[in-house]
C-alpha cells in the first residue's frame, strides 16, 4: 500500500487549506448580505449554501488518486470535492455567485456544478449522483480504458434507493467505481442512529458482495491509503468498493441553520478534531518547515481570494439567457427537414 510521500503530503495540505479557506470566505460573503436579519434571498450569493468545512480529508484523500479523465459525482455539499478534483476555481466561484462566466452560466448554482474538463458533476438530490457515476464506470469498461468513477454521498444517503441499487449494479457488472460515504454524523438535524440501522455505513457493502471499508477518523493519510487501494482495485478491473470516512460538520447544515437541535458538545468536538491541524503536524514531522507550510497556506488563500474577487467582478447574466441552453442541438434534432420518401428509397 503506497504511503504518502512528502510531495503528496504537501499536495494534500495545499488542497485542504484551499478548501477550508474557500468555505470560510464563502461563509463571510454569504452572510454579509444577510446582516442583521437573515434573508435567504438577500446578499451576493443566491440560494442555499451548504459548506463542507470539516470534510476536507474526504475530498483530498480520495481525489488525489484521480486523473482528469476519472469521473466524480458529488453531493449538495460539493466544494471541497470540486477543489480536490481540480475544478476551475474561478468559474466555479462565478457560478456560485450566479455570474455569466460561471461553469453553468449562472443557471446551475452551487449544488449543480459541472466541469466536463475534469469530469466533475454534483447535484442536489440525495444519492442522485450514484447511478451516473456507475454509468461513467460502465462507459470506461465498455471503452476498455482504465478510467474510474467515484461517487460521493453523505451518511444520510445510505438509505436511499439510488445508492442501494447502484451497489448491485456496480457489483454485478464489476464496474470500476468507488462509493465514498462522508459520515459527518448528521443529516441536517437527524443523527445517524435515529434513521439508519447500521453504525458503519460501509457495512451496506456486505449485502452486495463487495468490500466495504470504514476510515474511522478524518486523518487524511488514512483516507489516502484506503482510497488508493480501492481506486487501484477499480483501475485494475477488480470491481467496486464502498468507503466510509468519518468527517465532521464544522458549520450548520446550510448557512442560516440555527443548529438548535445539536448539542454544544458535539459542535465543540467537531471543532477540535481538525484534520488540517493534524496534517500540519504530520508535515512538520516529515520535516517540512513552518515557513513552507505558511507559504502553501498563504498561496492557497491568495488563490481563493483572487477567485472570489474575480467572480464578484463578473457580469450577471442577461435575463434573456434564461431561455437558452435547454438543448445543445436544435429542437428538431439533427435534421430540420424530412427527406423525400422516394429519394431515400421509398416508393409510395
Amino acid at each position: 500500500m503506497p504511503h504518502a510521500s512528502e510531495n503528496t503530503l504537501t499536495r494534500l495540505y495545499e488542497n485542504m487549506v484551499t478548501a477550508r479557506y474557500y468555505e470560510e470566505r464563502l461563509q463571510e460573503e454569504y452572510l454579509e448580505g444577510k446582516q442583521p436579519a437573515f434573508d435567504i434571498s438577500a446578499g451576493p450569493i443566491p440560494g442555499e449554501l451548504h459548506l463542507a468545512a470539516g470534510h476536507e480529508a474526504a475530498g483530498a484523500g480520495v481525489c488525489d488518486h484521480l486523473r482528469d479523465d476519472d469521473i466524480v459525482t458529488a453531493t449538495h455539499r460539493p466544494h471541497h470535492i470540486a477543489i480536490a478534483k481540480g475544478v476551475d476555481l474561478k468559474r466555479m466561484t462565478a457560478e456560485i455567485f450566479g455570474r455569466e462566466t460561471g461553469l453553468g452560466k449562472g443557471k446551475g448554482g452551487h449544488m449543480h456544478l459541472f466541469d466536463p474538463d475534469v469530469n466533475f458533476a454534483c447535484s442536489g438530490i440525495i444519492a442522485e449522483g450514484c447511478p451516473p457515476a456507475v454509468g461513467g464506470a460502465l462507459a470506461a469498461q465498455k471503452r476498455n480504458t482504465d478510467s474510474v468513477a467515484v461517487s460521493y454521498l453523505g451518511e444520510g444517503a445510505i438509505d436511499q434507493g439510488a445508492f442501494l441499487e447502484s451497489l448491485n449494479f456496480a457489483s454485478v457488472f464489476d464496474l470500476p467505481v468507488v462509493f465514498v460515504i462522508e459520515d459527518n454524523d448528521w443529516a441536517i438535524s437527524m443523527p445517524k442512529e435515529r434513521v439508519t440501522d447500521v453504525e458503519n455505513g460501509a457495512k451496506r457493502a456486505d449485502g452486495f458482495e463487495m468490500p466495504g471499508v470504514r476510515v474511522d477518523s478524518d486523518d487524511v493519510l488514512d483516507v489516502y491509503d484506503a482510497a488508493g487501494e480501492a481506486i487501484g482495485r477499480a483501475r485494475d478491473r477488480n470491481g467496486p468498493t464502498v468507503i466510509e470516512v468519518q468527517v465532521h460538520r464544522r458549520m450548520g447544515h446550510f448557512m442560516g441553520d440555527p443548529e438548535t437541535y445539536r448539542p454544544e458538545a458535539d459542535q465543540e468536538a467537531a471543532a477540535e478534531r481538525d484534520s488540517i491541524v493534524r496534517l500540519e503536524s504530520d508535515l512538520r514531522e516529515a520535516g517540512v518547515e513552518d515557513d513552507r507550510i505558511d507559504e502553501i497556506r498563504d498561496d492557497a488563500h491568495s488563490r481563493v481570494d483572487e477567485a472570489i474577487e474575480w467572480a464578484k467582478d463578473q457580469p450577471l447574466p442577461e435575463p434573456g439567457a434564461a431561455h437558452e441552453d435547454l438543448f445543445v442541438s436544435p429542437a428538431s434534432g439533427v435534421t430540420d427537414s424530412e427527406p423525400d420518401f422516394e429519394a431515400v428509397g421509398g416508393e409510395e
Partner: protein
Amino acid sequence: MSGAESTRELTMSRAMVSAIAHEMRENDDVFYMGEDVADYGGIFDSTQGLREEFGYDRIMDVPISETAYIGAAVGAAQAGMRPIAELMFVDFFGVAMDQIYNQMAKNTYMSGGNVSVPMVLTAAVGGTYNDAAQHSQTLYGTFAHIPGLKIVVPSTAYEAKGLMHNAIRDDDPVLYMFHKRLMGIGWMPAPDGPKTPVPETDYTIPFGRADVKRDGEDVTIVTLGLHVHRALEAAETLASDGISAEVIDLRSLVPLDTETIVESVEKTGNLVVVDEDYRSYGVTGEVTARVAEEALDALERVERVAVPDVPIPYSRPLEKEVIPGTEDIVNAATRTQ
C-alpha cells in the same frame, strides 16, 4: 376588531401547524412522518412545536428513503391510521413517485372502493429564493394530471388551516402543497397577504371551491398559491390604469372549480391564467381548455403567464425572468384590453 381570544392573525405555517395539532389531539391515529420534522420542526416550519407536544412517536423523523416512508404511509393508512407524510421539497417526488402514483393514488379505484387511503402528503413548493432547478418547482401540473389524488394549495393562513382540517379528515389521499414563500419563515420574508385572521376553532374548507379574492369586470385572473398575492398586487396596478381585474384563487387543483372560472369569464370576456409551474401541458392549458369548452363565445382573449418551459435557473436575473412577476401579470391583463 374585538374578541382576540377567538381570532388571531397567524402566519401560514402557524395556521397549518394548528390544524395538525388539533387533529392529533382529537385522533390518536394521526401521525406525521418526514425528514427533520421532529427536532428541527420542519425545514419550512411545517411541524414547529409538534414534537414537543406529541413526542417522537407521533412526529417521526424518518430515514432519507422517501419511497419507504411514503409507501409506509400508504400501508398505515390502509391499516386504518391517518398518516401525514412530508416530502420536504416537491422536487424530490421523483425518488418516490411510484408509491405516490401507483399506490396512494390508485389503490382506492383498483379495489373498487373497498380500500381507502386516508393520508395526507404535504410538500413544500415554489421558488423566488434562487434555489435553482432541483429545489424551486411547484409541479402543480405534474400532480394534478394524476387521477386519484385530491390536491390543495393554500394561499393564506385562513385557507391553510381550513384545508388542512379537511385534508386530514378526508378518507381519500390528499396532496397538500404549501408555498415556502408564504409560510412566514423567519429567514424567508413573506409578502403581507398570507398572514390573515384565523379562527381558533376547527373549520373545514371544502375542496373544489375556488375563492374570488377580488371582484372585477374587465379581466379574469385565475391563479393559485404565491401568485394569488402577485395577482392581487397586479390588480391594484391595473385598477389605477382603469382596468378592473377579478382575481380567482383556485385553492384546489383537483377537484377544479370550473364553474367559478367560467362564470367570471362570462362576465369579463378575458382570461389570464397565472401559474408558477411550467407553461406547457399544465395548469394554464387546462384552465384555458375548460373555458374554451364551456364559454368559447364569451371568450375574447386568453393569456397564459407561466414558467417558459425551462428548468428554474439559479442566478437572480434568470430566476426573475422565468417566474411570473407582478409586472408580467399586469402586462398580460393589459394585452387583453
